[in-house]
């Protein structure tokens, strides 16, 4: 999880550009937006009419002591109608605004997620999964405020303020002028208060984040703290943090107890001044008392819209930060993969050729240096080499997870860059060292989301790789639940499931990045058998540590520090007396001890 303190963050892009780009997301919803602004006019109208109705009753009947029950009834019902209309409009407006905001967030998430799915592996190497996750989830959520409310509401608020002012002048110009005197004061206080409150709020959020982080770390490390007897020091550290939070928290109480109540005092002062000025005119018969009543109501209505506008100004700052982060991801085009264009191919034969391939993950440190080899269709080829020699890299390049810097990779005689990426990868199935299982069930882990793989295909694949035995023994068999990352299965079982997955996709090229030493002998035997079952007719590539498993390969490629050292069959390489023979003899010695 990442925590941030917004007032320390400096935007790199111009605010205006960010804002305009955000506005662009409103485009599909312009009609709804227009409807909403119409509603805003009507809601404001209702709010302005209400005091006027009472003013009418006071001036024409009550002040003159005229008893007219039918008029009171009519006015009461009119008032009720206005209130009901206001309620219905407010409800619709809230609903539509939420809808727009949610739809825009949906669109943005769709755009982001699709974009991220089509990024090359380089992108995932460079960005932590936590960061990518935050972009799609929290950063988009942070824009909600802008899309579903603040923007439209501030339009509504401006209309409201203008409406109040206009009504006031229509009623009485000189009283209106006195009322205007309060506006600058209210605006000033509101903005100062809002800004301070927002800053304090963000600081509080940051501190809660830090408390959260502290607790997470200390609960995980609690055993160590106990063993090292540092409970006291840790508690004191926590107290320091908690004290900081307390200070900020208390400041929130103070700010809240000052901000809104001060407005109340200002309002009362203005109202007192106005009454003092108006009382003479009323006594002189130049002003009706109901007008005064309406003015008092209107003055009290100033605060809410001004408050909302101030809120808008302060909240937009943090929204823009999230916006910038989202756009940063959307604008990394150079790492995206093109899944659409390229030569379509139904099935490849499985001829793979590397021609003088040079490759570096970072454009600097060469991982593969001038690598050349050719694999014929249907051959079984083994790569042998130390950890970090470049074996796994070669496999990543075959499926074009990375593009090479120099040389050429040909499949069936065609440069792999000319193929449609999707078609290419569908032909090459890799069983990786670190197996990844998705949460779901066994079936969904074997077929992934490829609906053309039937249940029969799944069972056949499982049988082929000897995974059927353990799957059949599970309570729910193929529907057995797979929890997050498959943690309920042993490493060997996970390996077998991923094996079955690769087989079910019926690839032309089958790659097995050999499993680690932790797998028990039984599973290993099963995997050996599986290899024999599936290699017929396909190009099969094995990465192996244990040389005994690759003796029968058609071709063995020995690789060391990114260079190919030897290529040949087992017998040829033994005869040659090079690196392979040395390795082989070394292992033989251990077997002899046995």
């Amino acid at each position: 999880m990442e925590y941030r303190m917004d007032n320390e963050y400096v935007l790199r892009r111009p605010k205006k550009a960010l804002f305009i780009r955000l506005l662009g997301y409103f485009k599909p919803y312009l009609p709804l937006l227009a409807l909403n602004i119409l509603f805003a006019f009507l809601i404001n109208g209702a709010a302005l009419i209400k005091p006027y109705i009472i003013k009418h009753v006071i001036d024409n009947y009550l002040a003159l002591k005229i008893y007219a029950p039918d008029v009171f009834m009519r006015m009461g019902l009119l008032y009720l109608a206005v209130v009901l209309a206001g309620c219905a409009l407010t409800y619709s407006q809230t609903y539509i605004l939420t809808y727009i905001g949610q739809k825009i967030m949906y669109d943005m998430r769709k755009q982001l997620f699709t974009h991220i799915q089509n990024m090359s592996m380089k992108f995932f190497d460079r960005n932590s999964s936590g960061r990518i996750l935050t972009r799609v989830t929290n950063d988009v959520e942070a824009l909600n405020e802008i899309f579903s409310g603040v923007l439209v509401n501030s339009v509504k608020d401006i209309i409201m303020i203008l409406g109040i002012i206009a009504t006031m002048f229509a009623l009485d110009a000189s009283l209106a002028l006195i009322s205007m005197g309060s506006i600058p004061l209210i605006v000033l206080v509101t903005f100062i208060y809002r800004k301070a409150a927002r800053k304090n709020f963000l600081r509080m959020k940051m501190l809660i984040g830090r408390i959260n982080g502290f607790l997470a770390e200390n609960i995980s490390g609690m055993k160590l703290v106990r063993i090292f007897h540092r409970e006291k020091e840790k508690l004191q550290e926590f107290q320091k943090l908690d004290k900081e939070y307390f200070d900020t928290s208390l400041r929130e109480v103070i700010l809240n107890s000052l901000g809104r109540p001060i407005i109340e005092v200002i309002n009362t002062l203005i109202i007192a001044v106005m009454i003092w000025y108006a009382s003479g005119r009323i006594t002189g018969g130049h002003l009706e008392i109901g007008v005064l009543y309406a003015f008092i109501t209107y003055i009290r209505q100033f605060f809410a819209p001004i408050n909302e506008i101030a809120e808008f100004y302060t909240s937009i700052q943090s929204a823009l930060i999230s916006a910038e982060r989202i756009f940063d991801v959307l604008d990394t085009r150079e790492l995206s993969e093109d899944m659409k264009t390229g030569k379509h191919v139904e099935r490849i034969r499985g001829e793979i050729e590397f021609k003088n391939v040079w490759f570096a993950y970072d454009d600097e440190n060469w991982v593969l240096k001038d690598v050349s080899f050719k694999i014929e269709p249907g051959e079984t080829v083994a790569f042998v080499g130390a950890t970090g020699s470049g074996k796994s890299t070669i496999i990543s390049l075959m499926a074009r997870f990375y593009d090479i810097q120099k040389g050429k990779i040909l499949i069936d005689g065609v440069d792999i860059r000319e193929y449609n990426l999707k078609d290419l990868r569908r032909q090459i199935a890799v069983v990786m060292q670190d197996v990844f299982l998705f949460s779901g069930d066994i079936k969904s882990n074997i077929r992934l989301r490829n609906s053309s793989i039937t249940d029969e295909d799944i069972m056949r694949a499982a049988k082929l790789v000897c995974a059927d035995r353990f799957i059949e023994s599970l309570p729910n068999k193929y529907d057995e639940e797979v929890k997050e990352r498959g943690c309920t299965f042993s490493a060997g079982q996970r390996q077998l499931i991923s094996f079955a997955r690769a087989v079910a996709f019926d690839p032309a090229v089958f790659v097995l990045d050999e499993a680690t030493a932790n797998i028990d002998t039984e599973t290993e035997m099963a995997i050996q058998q599986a290899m024999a079952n599936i290699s017929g007719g396909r190009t099969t590539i094995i990465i192996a540590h244990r040389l005994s498993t690759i003796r029968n390969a058609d071709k063995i490629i020995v690789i060391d520090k990114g260079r190919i050292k030897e290529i040949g069959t087992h017998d040829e390489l033994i005869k040659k007396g090079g690196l392979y023979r040395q390795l082989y003899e070394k292992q033989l010695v251990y077997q002899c001890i046995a």
Partner: protein
Amino acid sequence: MGLLRSYIVKTTQLLWEFIKQFKWRYIIGMIVLLITSFISSMIPKITGYVTDSINDRMPASVTNKYLLMLVAATVAVFVLRFTWRYFLVGSNRYLECYLREKLFAHMQTLPASFYDNNKTGDLIAYAINDIQAIRRVFGFGFTSILDGVVVNTISIMIMVRTISPMLTLMALAPAPIIVLVIYFLRKKIRERFGMVQKAFAEMSGKVQESISGIRVIKAFAQEEEEVEDFLKYNQVRVDTQMSLTRVSAVLGPVTQLTFGISTVLFIIYGGGLVAKGVISLGDYVAFSSYIMVIMGPIVSIGRIIDVWQRGIASIQRLDRIFCQSSEKDAENALATVSLFGLNRQVEDSQPVEKLRGHIVIRDLTFAYPGTDKIVLHDINLEIKEGETLGILGRTGSGKTTLVNLLLRLYEVEDGHIFIGGRDINHIPLKVLRENIGYVPQDNFLFSTTIKDNIQFFKPIYSDSQIEDAAKMAGIYDEIISFPEGFNTVVGERGVTLSGGQKQRISIARAIIKDPSILILDDSLSAVDTKTEQRILENLKNVLKGRTGIVISHRVSVVRYCDHIIFLDEGRIIERGTHEELMRLRGAYYNLYTSQIEQAEDNLLLQARG
């Protein structure tokens, strides 16, 4: 209620202690609140007087007098309200922090088994969300009730007495319905809000999984299908929010309607009263203000019930933790810390006695508390002072359990484990743990400076002691190659260290205490063969003159130990030196051959390069 109380006894006790300590703040706060409520319920009446004085064409001086009263009352309410809020609401912020510190302190004293049974995320939620919920009961909940009751009582009294009982009754008529409606709305809102949160969490989970599994997705060209699936979660997020909005958007209009209906009744009926001269115009104006004042608390009753219910639930949750019994030693360690940063620093500076590193384990059988699965069977073992024992075995064979017992993270009965000739249960925990240097399995470092990680938050070591420990652990050169040296921050917000580097810092942390026993708990599993060799080389130095226990599932790590035991399903199945075990041709031998060949391949290839 009686049943409820028995659940929350411990937390309530804590709350009472706090309130007693802050009683003057609460008393003053409440008195000021009462005065404030009284004055503020006078304001509408004063407004009424102002109106009447103008309408009845009284002299300007009368109007001005009422105006001054109005301004004075408003200013007084402002000042007084600030005062009580500062005392009452402010104290509750204290309460929040106090409870949190209490909770953390308490968690620090809980046994290891507590952490086996509770998820970190839940514990964090207790410390943040639940405590805030309790604070709200005492802050918003409590003050709103007090304020609301006083204001409404006085206002209604004034309305009934000086204006009109019938009018009052009519204005209040809709209130009960409103309270019920809002209460049910809130209940619905809470349910649906829970669904929104769940949808958001599930969407996050989906994104997280598709990032972690991106290699598989790409390898099988499943990107489009993955996007399709994500959109389902994305849509649920939208749908749940809209279903929440359908309910929550009613709240505002209902409130408007409440005020509206009261006003309507008032226009229809009250207008007649004024026109007939039963009440004055000023009463009419005052009355309309009172409606606003009274409806405020009524509208928030739903919210108060909500806050209250959540608070009780949170108190119950917290109580489950506070009722867990602590371990004495940790309680003692914290006894000198008083809450609120006022540290009574009584430094316990007397040196800890040295234990001799002679370990004997006799007929030890163990099952974790609350389980009946025996994880250690009949362990008999002796490690002489200065010797090193290697413990080998697969995951789950009982290696770590054995170490947990030596550190007394879990209790065993008397008469099974002896250190330096004394029964482990009779050695003060502080002495025991100060004498054992422990290097954990997961190389856990805190996100602070390297220096702080080595001295481990207690600045009692000199710089040269820290440097020596780092040198002995073989990490010194790497640390000073960082621009900030020992002050380099590690972890998320600092430098990312390799597994090997973390490992060696953990070792430095363990040996700076100069312990007589050093335990390495499978700590080399994260490092590659080359680093492993270097660390093992260092360890020879470190272990000189100390008793060592080295746990691993790799043969290469334990082969040079004086004694090796092979654990399998909690039993020692083989024991002896490396040579003896090789001759035995059993489990040890098999593991050796299968592991060593792979390692040797790598070494050979690296050597040739």
